[in-house]
């Protein structure tokens, strides 16, 4: 395709992405390098329905002057990246120097928000992604072999985990796994332990979140693979059958290679989504046990005093994390791309 033609085909999408994603990314990167001016505080008295209390307020006139001089704020460079809320460079260095064993070192790391959230995020990403790809593939193959009339209903019900509103969906699931809910009671019965509670233990909470993640995202993989299965070349499959290939061999040597680009695609999207895991942590009220980078951003932005620079920094770290995570898949895509070109 000629550059000119390509340009016109691509222009609308490019505009949408430049205005609504690229521009905000630039401003977020800037925001992560600058912090608000030092607040000039004055002591004063606040009065209200419950009497007067001595208090402190920001001296707006003095602060305003600082703002006028430097509208972006103080330049902080990478200072925010290095503070305790993010990479915690000083804390990690001290821990490295002082801890006597790996266990000590990791327990210090586990106490720092960034590393604590990375431990969960990475575990979650690397268990959920492969599991959901396998499950999605199995469902797609099984559904594909079904009777034509059943397919519509089965597809609909398979999509339910994605369709049911996540707010209420997670509320219902969260209730079901309560120690007195229907699934929680079942698990207690199966484990023969009447005091078992999924919500009170970190390990079990992680497992619940992982199961929820697979359950929620498997339909996505299923639909993509199912659509891909419709385009499996019949002649190749038939000639494989003529050659006496077993069913497993047909899947292994014809179907899977054909679906490989789709597997790459699903893996890319899901690695990224799982790395940014957020909704289930909120839905399951799980922040005591599991935190993710997206959750930290939410927490920084959701407080009574919004920490914009901290949130911006965590966002940039998320992007960097996703880039590192995806690099193997990207290298593979690059090779595929070169081969085709």
């Amino acid at each position, binding site marked *: 395709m000629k550059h000119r033609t390509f340009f016109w085909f691509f222009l609308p999408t490019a505009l*949408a992405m430049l205005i609504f994603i690229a521009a*905000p990314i630039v401003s977020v990167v800037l925001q992560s390098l600058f912090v608000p001016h030092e607040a000039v505080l004055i002591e004063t008295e606040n009065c209200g329905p419950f009497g007067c209390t001595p208090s402190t307020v920001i001296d707006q006139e003095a602060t305003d002057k600082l703002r006028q001089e430097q509208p972006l704020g103080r330049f902080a460079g990478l200072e925010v990246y290095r503070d305790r809320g993010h990479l915690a460079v000083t804390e990690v260095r001290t821990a490295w120097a002082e801890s006597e064993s790996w266990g000590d070192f990791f327990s210090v790391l586990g106490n720092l928000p960034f590393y604590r959230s990375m431990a969960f995020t990475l575990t979650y990403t690397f268990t959920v992604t492969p599991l959901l790809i396998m499950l999605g593939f199995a469902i797609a193959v*099984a*559904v594909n*072999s079904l009777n034509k009339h059943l397919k519509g209903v089965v597809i609909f019900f398979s999509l339910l985990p994605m369709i049911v509103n996540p707010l209420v969906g997670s509320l219902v699931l969260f209730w079901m796994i309560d120690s007195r809910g229907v699934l929680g009671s079942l698990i207690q019965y199966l484990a023969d332990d009447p005091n078992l509670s999924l919500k009170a233990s970190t390990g079990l909470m992680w497992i619940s979140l992982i199961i929820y993640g697979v359950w929620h995202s498997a339909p996505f993989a299923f639909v993509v693979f199912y659509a891909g299965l419709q385009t499996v070349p019949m002649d190749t499959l038939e000639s494989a059958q003529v050659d006496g290939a077993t069913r497993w061999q047909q899947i292994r040597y014809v179907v899977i290679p054909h679906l490989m680009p789709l597997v790459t695609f699903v893996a890319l999207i899901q690695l990224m989504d799982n790395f940014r895991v957020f909704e289930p942590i909120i839905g399951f009220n799980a922040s005591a046990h599991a935190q993710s980078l997206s959750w930290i951003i939410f927490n920084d932005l959701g407080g009574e005093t919004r920490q914009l620079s901290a949130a911006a920094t965590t966002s940039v770290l998320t992007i960097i994390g996703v880039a590192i995570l995806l690099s193997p898949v990207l290298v593979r*895509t690059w090779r595929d791309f070169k081969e085709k070109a």
Partner: protein
Amino acid sequence: MTPAARNKPLALRIGAAVFVVVWLITAAFPFLWTFWGSFKVELDFFSIADWTNALTGERTEETYGRPFTGAGYFGAWVQEGFWRPVINTTIVCFFVVCTSLTIGTLAGYALSRSSYHYVFWLLITALIFRAMPPITLVSGYLPPFFQWNLWGYLPTAIIVLVAINQPFTLWMLHSFFTKIPRELDESAKVDGCTQFQAFRLVIIPVMWPGVITTGLFSFLLAYNDFAVTSMLLSEANRTMVPEIAAFLGTTYTEGNVMFAVAAVVSATAPIFILVMFFQRQIVSGLTAGAVKG
């Protein structure tokens, strides 16, 4: 695959059937449970005393004299006017799907038919764009939107949803278009078509499986989005999800969980109809449209 399915050994067929049934139960059970529970009072739905109350409806019987009640539905639809957010959601979903598919197919097609290096880098850039957490993006939109008086309107939310989802649409359509053989449009071009004519006359008729699948995901994204719609829409223009969140209540105040549950259940019905309607496209459409070159 279809001919192969016919002569499967019995054991394999039973195995596959059992697997599908187990999966269906896993997928649908929470929904069916919600559906059943939506006719109960809150204390039965979250039956803290004994989970079997959710089945028998003990507290519901105490309150209404029978184990089922439509109070949640009445509350959500009649008292709270849930039809308004439903209309808003319909508008948002329709325009998000149409817009993102229109500009997405053009771009995805172009990406799949060009072999310059910038194609790869464009795809990578799109992917990196997608890595940006939506809540950060949305909080970045607020000041300019308020400044230019764009905040609170449906078109704003639609454009933002389209843009945020565009990297995904692009990747998805790109991988589908790559699987449509290049010879198709090449030969059309040899016959004297321009690139756009080749796209319109040759590619559009065979691209539906991929487009429908992508459209389905665009639809679900717009339908279930919370981050964008809750922050960018005013109270009057709210879509379903923020409205349901409002039913749930906050720290200081009582919500009405049963309104939310009833709203979720009744909001799923149109999707059911939609998927049933599209299943002919999804199932037979996909099979018939399978590319044979």
